[in-house]
């Protein structure tokens, strides 16, 4: 049933495939630490995501979709390897259902499903620690980020806005931080959670504000020192919730100004 049209780069399916390609390098880096355990976790996450997609597609009599794959990939990269399988299934199920499928599938929601999955997991199990970013993971994120940037799937405005806001807040806090350490800690979650094309703001000015909000929240949520993966997840969720409001206000102000100009 999947026609060529469904797989063109600008379609939802095309976006999902591009994101999956971008996620291959980070997946490979994380897998080298403990390949068997990682493969098990990845399969659990994939099965959970795709089973729910299948159930909903059947109930709604729609074509089977596969967008949950990116959610499963992101969750598998960020989750610690020693986590129990049922906890992965729990997190991915909640993320895919509450973050995406209740709204009607990929493109209809307003939050990043992986951010929903991870934050519900963190709230449920407060003692859980996410996998903190390493230099190798940050480096592996770069080619994917470049690919997504070239395809126009992530916005440089969001990236730059987030970087500026976190740099300013870190400077205000008076923390002596190596820029490389901060960039390493933030790279993966910034590209795949904050810059997600669906949950991010969509107007040019809105993207600056959205990026700044996300970058600022990361520093506010982090304990002193380098930003943590947990802070990135919650910042992505919070700024995703506010993105529609930011866009709405930007469009409203723009419309007011146009009206005044033509009055």
């Amino acid at each position: 049933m999947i026609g060529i049209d469904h797989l063109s780069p600008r379609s939802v399916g095309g976006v999902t495939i591009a994101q999956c390609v971008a996620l291959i390098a980070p997946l490979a880096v994380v897998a080298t630490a403990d390949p068997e355990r990682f493969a098990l976790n990845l399969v659990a996450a994939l099965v959970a995501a795709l089973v729910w997609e299948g159930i909903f597609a059947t109930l709604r009599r729609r074509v089977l979709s596969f967008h949950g794959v990116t959610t499963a990939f992101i969750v598998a990269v960020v989750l610690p390897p020693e986590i129990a399988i049922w906890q992965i299934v729990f997190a991915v199920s909640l993320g895919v259902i509450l973050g995406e499928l209740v709204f009607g599938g990929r493109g209809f929601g307003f939050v990043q499903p992986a951010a929903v999955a991870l934050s519900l997991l963190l709230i449920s199990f407060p003692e859980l620690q996410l996998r903190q970013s390493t230099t190798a993971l940050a480096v592996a994120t770069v080619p994917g980020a470049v690919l997504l940037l070239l395809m126009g799937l992530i916005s440089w405005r969001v990236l730059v806005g987030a970087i500026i806001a976190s740099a300013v807040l870190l400077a205000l806090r008076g923390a002596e931080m190596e820029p490389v350490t901060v960039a390493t800690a933030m790279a993966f979650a910034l590209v795949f959670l904050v810059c997600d094309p669906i949950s991010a703001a969509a107007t040019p000015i809105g993207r600056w504000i959205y990026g700044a909000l996300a970058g600022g929240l990361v520093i506010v949520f982090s304990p002193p020192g380098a930003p943590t993966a947990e802070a990135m997840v919650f910042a992505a969720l919070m700024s995703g919730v506010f993105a529609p409001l930011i866009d709405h206000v930007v469009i409203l102000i723009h419309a007011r100004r146009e009206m005044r100009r033509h009055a």
Partner: protein
Amino acid sequence: MTKKLTYLTGPLIDQNPITLQILGICSALAVTTSLATALVMSAALTAVLCLSSATISLIRHHIPNVIRLIVQIVIIASMVVVIDEILKAYAFGISRQLSVFVGLIVTNCLVMGRAEAFAMRNPVGPSVLDALGNGLGYSLILVLIGTIRELFGTGAILGVTVFVPVSEEGWFEPLGLMQLAPSAFFIIGALIWAIRSRWSQQVETPKLSLVKIGAKR
């Protein structure tokens, strides 16, 4: 006879006070962290609802229309005080856990709603049946949410361990989320969703709809 029975069975799902009329949500969120509190709260609310509906229905011809709300609140409040005192006398521990929420039954939209919408206009028999049906509909949802939240939040039902938690060398890691208020929102939301997918006549018509591109206006 069947018509009388619909007073009782209607509010269970078709006219459920929580999932269709979205009444009494506040207490449904607050007292459902464990099944025991949910059960006691359900019993207290059902008792208050039945007693106050019966009383209001009995004296409905003698209540002056302009002060009817005040009269209703006085009657409901007296019933609540009675129930609260009974709980304090016979189930002190649970009444401590329920804290203000038994007292707040006075302001529960469900009780006021049934008094104003039904008991004021109907004879005693149907009023009591309607009150009992609404009380049971409320209880049904509360018990469901209470069971889910206690089972997944602590691994036990009514204090009896079902899933052995990790702290006692089992496998179950209690979901802290389930003991927080947002989880009750999620569960009520999911319940409403499930009920409206099954009984689709409950779905409300949207106030706004998307304009179809290319369609004739």
